[in-house]
């Protein structure tokens, strides 16, 4: 069984600001018998078929708003599909927004524990990886310093370290590779190569094409919510560059 299978997946969003935003409006609509759900529907994904094999490293390409992040959120189970099915096999860690779930008043160690718990890990599972996370993040005094004293780069490093060190079966990264300084980025790339070499499945969204080429073997090009091209990364990148 492949790691991820999307079959005929569409995702429709409503612009909720177009719906009634206050009770007053709701009452008025009720009284006038106007529809309450007037939101314009907008498709961000149209009938997407995508299969990611176990151990594959796939890049998602496309302009802003082409639906890349939506695909990741659907795979991660954050969004429900409007139609079609999503099947996944194994533990998924999605890093969509770095540091979501972190609390500024808590220390590094406490934040690591909280984030791991959000990702569904037990304390024992976290204990296995804890030392590795701290070492990889390489932030001085990490365990005892409240997060608010970190620089934003350090905070991103910590989030990234937790995500990659937990060894999920499927790792989804959304433009988070641009974190930290040059040295840390180099270590991140190395870490991801290692993760991939050990059989981890990787789906990556990034606008840094060279980085994608280094990590992935296959690329999927999304345009206006549809898959425009799906194939070996060199081929897709070449066409993508011509188009842009």
């Amino acid at each position, binding site marked *: 069984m492949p790691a991820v299978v999307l079959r005929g997946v569409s995702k429709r*969003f409503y612009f*909720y600001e177009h*719906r*009634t*935003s*206050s*009770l*007053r409006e*709701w009452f008025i609509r009720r009284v006038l018998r106007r529809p309450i759900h007037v939101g314009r529907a907008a498709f961000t994904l149209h009938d997407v078929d995508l299969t990611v094999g176990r151990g594959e490293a796939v890049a998602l390409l496309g302009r802003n708003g082409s639906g890349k992040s939506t695909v990741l*959120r659907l795979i*991660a*189970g*954050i*969004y*429900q599909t409007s139609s079609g099915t999503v099947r996944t096999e194994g533990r*998924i860690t*999605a*890093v*969509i*927004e770095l*540091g*979501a*779930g972190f*609390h500024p*008043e*808590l220390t590094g160690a*406490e934040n690591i*524990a*909280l984030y791991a*718990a*959000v*990702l*569904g*890990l*037990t*304390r024992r599972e976290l204990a296995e990886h804890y030392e590795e996370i701290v070492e990889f993040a390489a932030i001085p005094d990490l365990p005892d310093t409240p997060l608010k004293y970190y620089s934003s780069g350090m905070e991103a490093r910590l989030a990234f370290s937790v995500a990659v060190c937990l060894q999920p079966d499927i790792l989804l990264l959304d433009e988070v590779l641009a974190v930290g300084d040059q040295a840390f980025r180099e270590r991140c790339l190395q870490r991801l190569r290692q993760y991939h070499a050990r059989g981890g499945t990787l789906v990556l969204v990034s606008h840094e094409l060279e980085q994608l080429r280094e990590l992935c073997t296959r690329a999927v090009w999304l345009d206006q919510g549809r898959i425009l091209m799906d194939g070996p990364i060199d081929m897709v990148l070449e066409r993508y560059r011509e188009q842009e």
Partner: protein
Amino acid sequence: MIGAVGRMRGVWRYRELLHSLVVRNLKVKYQRSLLGFVWTLVNPLFTVAVLGVVFSHVVRIPLPHYWAFLLSGYFVWNFMLQTLNTGTYIFAEHSRLTRSVAFPSEILVFGAAGSRLIEFAVEVALVLAVLAIFHHHVVPESYLVLPVLLLIQLLLVIGLALPIATLSVFYYDVHHALPIALTTLFYLSPVFYPAEMVPAAARDLYFLNPIAGLLTLYHDVLYWGRMPSPELLGGMLLAAVTSFLAGYALFRRYAAIFPEIV
């Protein structure tokens, strides 16, 4: 029913998160505060003192040890008030989390209720001691029913907080409406007067407010030191379970689209 059970199993898998959230809430609240828990006590005690003076010297409520009556209910009211208020902003506060991780988001509400319940447990322990020493002069047997009361209180507050939190995601109005509703309920619940003072004709209507029943249970157990009537205890247990299931069902209907909105 089956849906709720399946959902609860999903939540059980995340019990570690629930624990972390409860610990986090308490830590963040007390971390940089010198007097810490004292502040949690100061606010309700101050209100109790004011109510005590007003309703035993100005408007007279004829109860022996009126202060003991106030103490036995006010902390419960305070618990409900604060936890329900949390419902209005809990999902907005965790919007980044909801948008980027797939987890059962009711845990945020459970965590808020859980950390508040721990604070309440400490408060009520103090109240129990004070009442036993200065009011009853013995430890009343009725104190044994307290765990059931805590269970009712927890189910009830979650059953009310989940719909409030759900509604708050869609309508910002809840922020403005809830304080008004709670102020009204303060007068329509037996916080500073006993429910017995409500005219018999209106009592059925009066007890449609589940908080009225909850407070009456606490008055029985803590203030009067007597076992509550089986009808009231059973009725409230049923009401709490019903409100929990109904509130949860409403929440589940909309929870899947929270990440798209918050």
